[in-house]
């Protein structure tokens, strides 16, 4: 512990913390804009400047470490005036059409403007020219809303190691750009959407497609089916003021039914089917001495990443489609046949924590007999908007159940939403299938938790398996390099593009930098998923009665011809940059 003085108060704080953190200990909230915990502490915006005795000028608190005896002032008239002018400058060049902005009410710039009582712009002048890039199916960029905090760049470049975006130009003309100023759609973007999560304003947002859903819901000739991913249910409540990590499955199903969907299904059922197929594929690969390690394929951002960056490793990818795509394919075949509905009339909507799924659903491979597996992907945020637009008091809703026959799911499927979850679910099934027993050990602690890379050796049916679960594309890159260099001896690899997994996906509710500083959003959401698993009566995918029935009535067995046709896919090498 070291002694410091903040605003005249003596304080003992830990060593190796920043002035920003130390101030929080003293119950002082220093305003920040470009700071994002563990992602960006460049000290560029200068909102968090403080005075430190003995240092020249004002210093940023977000990246200045405390030292013993340091005397810090966070709140002098000069500091306040400086922060106000900085804010004024940012606002002066910002497109201030807040009322029609997607981030109205959840914008860090707006929050600060309110806090500082910014009544008028003191230094008006040239503004950033509006430039909207909406060619990507997943992400929309609006330069006029950008405040050059570069949190998105830090995310894309350092955390994801994708570097689809970076700063171009100088001075007032500097802006966030892609290679050759091309659209995000035509560069090495993986569509993971982590940039959206990093953005404090409305400069980055999902490509919203809820208007099409409303149209279909109104159309009497359409049979509109919705499915919801595991991670959505532990985050949706946040959009309605509920605590982070609240499980709102029942209310969510209730709201979807009120919105008018003809059927409300659970992507978790699809996840259980994915496990059936993936575990089968894995066992086959081991038996046949086929390409190992096998790598999971549920995360579409990850799939685009490997197609662009490691095409030589594509044979390692499981051929399984992601759960919602499998599920969509089954809705338009198995379900349609069973309920005698013309599959052409079915409009399949997936509610996902992910913006890359928007891209995935449009891939040409994701079709059967000319029909898309999934017609529209909306994010958790978009669903919240629909619920709000419909005037539904979400928090007061009664719980409802998913519809049969595709609404039943296991605890194994629930944990698909967090890093390590797919691995754990697969291991539960693999060990039972290999031993022919119903084994009681189903919790694989080694692949749980928030670490970006979790390596483990697990004993399955008397055999040691080396596995690894990695989340975040920088970590994925490390594992791929290990495999490429021949250093890796894993048999099974789980990769999720977003750090922490789907619960932290690009389509999830956006948490402010302040919230992310104060609570571990990932852990709270993950705990909620593990709690769903723990409370589930059935916790192994192959024991899901609905899934068993689908195999009995339709698919026959995992890896069958029909299963392959509907539930598996293939990959292709992809250029990073579209060159005309």
């Amino acid at each position, binding site marked *: 512990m070291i002694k410091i003085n903040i605003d005249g108060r003596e304080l003992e704080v830990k060593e190796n913390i920043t002035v920003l953190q130390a101030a929080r200990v003293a119950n002082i909230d220093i305003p920040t804009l470009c700071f994002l915990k563990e992602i960006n502490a460049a000290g560029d915006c200068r909102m968090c400047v403080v005075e430190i005795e003995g240092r020249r*000028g004002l210093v940023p608190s977000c*990246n200045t470490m405390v030292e013993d005896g340091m005397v810090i002032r966070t709140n002098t008239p000069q500091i306040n*005036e400086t922060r106000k002018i900085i804010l004024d*400058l940012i606002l002066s060049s910002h497109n201030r059409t807040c009322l029609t902005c997607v981030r109205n009410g959840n914008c860090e710039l707006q929050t600060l403007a309110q806090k500082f009582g910014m009544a008028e712009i003191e230094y008006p002048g*040239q503004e950033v020219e509006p430039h909207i890039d909406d060619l990507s199916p997943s992400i929309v960029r609006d330069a006029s809303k950008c405040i050059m905090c570069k949190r998105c760049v830090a995310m894309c470049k350092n955390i994801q190691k994708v570097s689809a975006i970076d700063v171009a130009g100088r*001075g*007032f003309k500097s802006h966030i750009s892609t290679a050759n100023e091309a659209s995000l759609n035509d560069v090495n973007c993986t569509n993971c959407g982590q940039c959206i999560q990093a953005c404090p304003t409305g400069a980055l947002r999902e490509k919203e497609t809820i208007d099409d859903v409303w149209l279909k819901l109104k159309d009497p000739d359409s049979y509109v089916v919705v499915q919801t991913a595991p991670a959505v249910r532990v985050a949706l409540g946040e959009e309605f003021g509920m605590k982070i990590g609240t499980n709102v499955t029942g209310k969510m199903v209730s709201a979807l039914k009120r919105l008018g969907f003809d059927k409300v299904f659970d992507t978790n059922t699809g996840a259980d089917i994915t496990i059936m197929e993936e575990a089968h594929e894995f066992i086959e690969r081991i038996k046949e001495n086929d390409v190992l390690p096998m790598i999971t394929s549920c995360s579409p951002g990850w799939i685009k990443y490997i197609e662009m960056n490691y095409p030589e490793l594509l044979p390692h990818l499981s051929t399984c489609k992601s759960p919602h795509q499998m599920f969509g394919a089954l809705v338009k075949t198995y379900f349609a046949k069973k309920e005698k509905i013309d599959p052409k009339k079915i409009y399949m909507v997936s509610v996902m924590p992910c913006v890359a799924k928007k891209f995935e659903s449009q891939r040409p491979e994701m079709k059967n007999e000319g029909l898309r597996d999934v017609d529209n992907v909306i994010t958790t945020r978009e669903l919240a908007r629909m619920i709000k637009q419909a005037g539904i008091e979400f928090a007061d809703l009664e719980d409802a159940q998913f519809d049969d026959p595709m609404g039943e799911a296991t605890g194994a499927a629930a944990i698909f939403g967090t890093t390590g979850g797919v691995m754990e679910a697969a291991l539960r099934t693999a060990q039972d299938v290999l031993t022919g027993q119903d084994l009681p050990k189903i919790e694989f602690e080694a692949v749980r938790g928030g670490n970006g890379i979790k390596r483990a050796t697990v004993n399955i049916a008397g055999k040691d398996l080396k596995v690894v679960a990695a989340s975040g594309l920088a970590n994925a890159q490390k594992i791929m390099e290990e495999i490429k260099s021949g250093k890796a001896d894993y048999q099974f690899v789980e990769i999720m593009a977003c750090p922490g997994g789907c619960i932290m996906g690009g389509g999830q509710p956006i948490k402010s930098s302040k919230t992310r500083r104060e609570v571990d959003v990932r852990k709270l959401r993950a705990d909620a998923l593990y709690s769903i698993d723990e409370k589930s009566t059935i916790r192994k995918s192959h024991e899901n009665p609905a899934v068993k029935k689908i195999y009995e009535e339709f698919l026959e067995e995992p890896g069958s011809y029909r299963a392959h046709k509907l539930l598996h896919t293939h990959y292709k090498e992809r250029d990073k940059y579209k060159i005309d």
Partner: protein
Amino acid sequence: MKTLEEINKIREQKRKELDLRVNLKAGTKEKHILVCRGTGCTSSKSPKIIENFKNILKEKNVENVRVIQTGCFGLCAKGPIVIIRPEDTFYAMVTPDDCEEIINTHIIEGKKVERLLCKDVDGTLVDRLDELNFYKKQERIALKNCGVIDPENIDEYIAFDGYKALEKVLTSMTPDEVIQEVTDSGLRGRGGAGFPTGKKWMFAKMAKGDQKYVVCNADEGDPGAFMDRSILEGDPHCIIEAMMIAGYAIGANKGYIYVRAEYPIAVQRFQKAIEQAKEYGILGTNIFGTDFEFDLAIRLGAGAFVCGEETALLESIEGRRGQPRLKPPFPANAGLWQKPTLINNVETYANITKIILNGAKWYSSIGTETSKGTKVFALGGNVVNIGLVEVPMGTTLREIVFDIGGGIPDGKEFKAAQTGGPSGGCIPAEHLDTPIDYESLSAIGSMMGSGGLIVMDNTKCMVNLAKFYLGFTVDESCGKCTPCRIGTQRMLEILERITEGNGETEDISKLEKLAHTIKNASVCGLGQTAPNPVLSTLKYFKDEYVAHIEDKKCPAGECKALANVEINPELCKGCGICKRQCPVNAISGEVKQPHKINPEICIKCGACVDKCPFKAISK
């Protein structure tokens, strides 16, 4: 590879051979025709002059005459410059066509070509370089070899004590002794901030690291400054030698020089110098038979001003966007690739070899109490003798502008001088007698900077000057931090509207408030100093701002939007010169009748004002 003995032998022989370069009475049959091949003279065809000299000498079979290319002589306004040694005859503004006459008259007949001799400010013909007032008050330490040796010939460098300081350091001094010598000399960073060089070396030496680097900052970016370029062009080996001495002192075996690609001659000469030093075994391993090793490489900058900021420079060398890093940690602890790194500017290095050879005591005897040695200034603007000058610290601005610079041309008055480029400030006439050193310049609101010195006469508008420098900063800001990225743009916009006649009373206080915020809150030196031109012009010439804003007038008559060009009918004789001069046909009138200007057509260029023989037109 050459042994130390061989190098010493070269020095001895070559020194005798080149005695005529520095000795007026050198007893030699030879004559050397020195032709400046600095950037300025090169662009005025000095390569062709060299070629012509050589061809003519060959044609005429003249023996014992050598044509030598040299670095900058300093008096760039008179270029291309040709000097003939040993008699030291100074020929100015020589053209390739003059070569034959020079050879015939001077070399063969032994007479001076009078028409090419340099005229001093008072009109007297000067036939020797050191008789020019321009050179009288100068003391050349950093520029010692510039204009004396052929920069592309390592033997010539060796002849004039080249690599002798390195030999001394490697064979008879410990690293601590070297640092002590530099510390005792009082040398401070010539890049602008004036940090004590010895201290910087000490920090780099004390820093722990398996690998250390020595970097030379040659990203000279201040508008009007070109001393670093001239040193690299005229004496590249002295920088190599100094960097090696620094490497020995701090424990580094690898160096980088970061030069802007806009300096092609400097880059090419430096590259050649590295190759020659390697060939002689001076760069490499087991240097001079010791276990010291050193390697050096050039990195080119793409012309971003901010890359002159040391941490942005390091980022650029590492291959990233040139943006400043957060300090601390300072480069001495975490520099290039996070390894301890010493960064000094070209001119700083250029002093090192002389300090080592002549001693700290000698060096510290020059200059003022706090600023030792000399400083090179790039003298430009409204001054007669435009060029490079090196003067002892403590020389007054008046001496530089009037005694060395020859005063203000066209009979105009001195108004102010800008030092420190876009980071500095203006110095008005009342401070002409301030002795120039780091402290006194900052005390009057300017700064030493890298040494750009722009002189302005009374026709220059100080608001416009501030606008010019702000425009530069806006273009060159990297955009990393908010105050510099948006703040300088807003300051420029305010200055633009003031000079266009749209200023408002509160603009002055707005400018001041914003200026202080940018100074206090910006990340790096670029932003922290960007408002200085505005603050210093506000300090000394606030009345001009007020005149623009309140009276909508530009007292200097420079701001076109505020100018009102009128012909006084009482003075106009109807000669018609103005009518012929006007580029847009805005003037009409009969011969011998007062003329008139149509204000709707007039573009306020002022061409008529300057040409009217009766001073009948005013702006």
